């Protein structure tokens, strides 16, 4: 479990957001968000529901278009290219290429139900990265072993527990050898007794030096694993710091009242 399988730049900033705005109709969900994630660090995003934390995460791999602002991963603009003083939206094909370098883990797993566990993990490396199937399958098998599901490779997802499905989803995201992994409330849809096994996998991943952004409500986990903690409120980053700073010495009343509710 100790060998990191992720490509990552030796140093520097992996994710950079600047002045990101996003509105859904009349509702402005993101109101000027700045963010920098250093290579090899874990950033945990906290906030009440509706604070914009999931939307923020989804702008990083362009699942959500932004109305204004800049999103960069490894120094490359995501979803747009510079055209003079403007940003021109990229074609879907180019966006898909960019996404194949960013892992994304969903709250509801979103495994492909008609494909076996192994086929789920192999699909993107073969079709998006044009890797050889035999090679991709060997790597997928190794990843499934890493998340403790080596014996489930021929099962269909619906026959697995929620915790097992989420571990497959993590293996599927890692199969792309991403330089960055995004987690959108990875344990929120799980029965309480299954949360631990998923957090263990994410913890191992963090220990292996992966760069990650995690939206979660698991405060204990955040305190243990996070290098940086962000607290979002009404579409802005209200507070940011180390876990000790944010959890033990919150500067804002909003942060304090939120922590009082979830701790």
């Amino acid at each position, binding site marked *: 479990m100790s060998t990191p399988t992720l490509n990552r730049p030796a140093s520097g900033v992996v994710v950079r957001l600047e002045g990101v705005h996003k509105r859904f109709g009349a509702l402005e969900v993101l109101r000027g968000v700045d963010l920098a994630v250093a290579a090899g660090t874990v950033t945990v995003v906290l906030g009440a529901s509706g604070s914009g934390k999931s939307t923020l995460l989804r702008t990083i791999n362009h699942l959500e278009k932004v109305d204004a602002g800049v999103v960069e991963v490894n120094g490359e603009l995501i979803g747009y290219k510079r055209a003079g003083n403007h940003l021109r939206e990229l074609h879907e*094909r180019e966006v898909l290429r960019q*996404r194949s370098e960013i892992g994304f883990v969903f709250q509801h797993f*979103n495994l*492909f139900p*008609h494909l076996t566990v192994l086929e789920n993990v192999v699909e*993107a490396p073969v079709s998006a*990265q044009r890797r050889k199937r035999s090679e991709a399958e060997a790597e997928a098998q190794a990843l499934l072993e890493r998340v403790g599901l080596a014996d489930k490779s021929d099962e269909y997802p619906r026959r697995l527990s929620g915790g097992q499905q989420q571990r497959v989803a993590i293996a599927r995201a890692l199969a792309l050898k991403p330089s960055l992994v995004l987690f959108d409330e990875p344990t929120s849809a799980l029965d309480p007794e299954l949360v631990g096994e998923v957090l263990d996998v994410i913890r191992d991943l963090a220990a292996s030096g992966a760069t990650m952004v995690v939206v979660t409500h698991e405060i204990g986990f955040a305190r243990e694993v996070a290098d940086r903690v962000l607290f979002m409120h009404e579409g802005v980053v209200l507070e940011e710091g180390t876990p000790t700073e944010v959890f033990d010495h919150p500067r804002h009343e909003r942060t304090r009242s939120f922590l009082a509710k979830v701790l």
Partner: protein
Amino acid sequence: MSETTRTGTAPSAPLGTEKPVEAVKVLPARHPWRWVATAAVAVVAAMAGNALVTNPAWEWPTVGQFLFSATILQSLWLTVQLTIVGTAIGLVLGTVLALLRMSKNPLLQGVSFAYISVFRSVPLILQLLFWFNLAILYKTIGFGVPFGPQFWTFSTQNLIAPLTAAFLGLGLHQAAYFAEIVRSGFLAIDPGQREAAAALGIPQFRQFWRIQLPQALRIIVPTTGNEVIGLLKGTSVVYIMALPELFYQVQVVYNRTGRVIPLLLVAAIWYFVLTTVLSVVQWFVERHYGRGSDRHQAELPLLKLARTVLAARARRPEVSR
């Protein structure tokens, strides 16, 4: 509350046996009313069978005489052709219409919407007559520059023979229905599936072919099966163009021989046989696309009946012991 249940010891004591717990056999619940219902249905089925067999008015020997006759088999083949071509045109065009309807372009959406509403509103028999009489409306059909010169022209009189009119009429009518079925199949897919495929960077055509289509087909196939069976029987309306398909042909024969009932029975038997074949095909296709969704493998109903009877026979000696 007895002492035993409260202390939680094995329930063997209330049963009054000295056997260890493992030896107590579990028997399935008894369902006497199921047996009553089974008997009642069996009696009605026997009565219906008797009425079919013993009444001489059905003229079973005549049925046997015509069932495999050359004219009937030829007309049967035409019915099969009409069904296959109608389904093929309908499925291809229906899928295109469904994709247009789901596109973001309002003009494409509108065209698809208009097509579906027109072809669903006009009765099939009327549409067939329009196609049949196309030559009255347009003398020639040409290919060339839109609104400009034409390179190839065909006389509609020659092009739209009755058979072509039937193929077109059935196919274009069916396309309107298939379009709605295909669309509902795609709408039923969890949006999370699209997002996951997009987040993994899977190329767009591959997303459609490998992720979306198989999941949509799970919804599309059962309804499509019904439509194809409907179309098979619906082909009988082309008799108005004097095409010698099954229904037209039996009418020709009974007008000649006067044996109306047995010939109608011949047609009914063949429609039943074809429908049964289609149902079996549908069952296998459904099982293929249902993989990963059913915890238990589905079983053909008649096989299940056979297995239940066999299992009951195998159990009998044990019960009597």
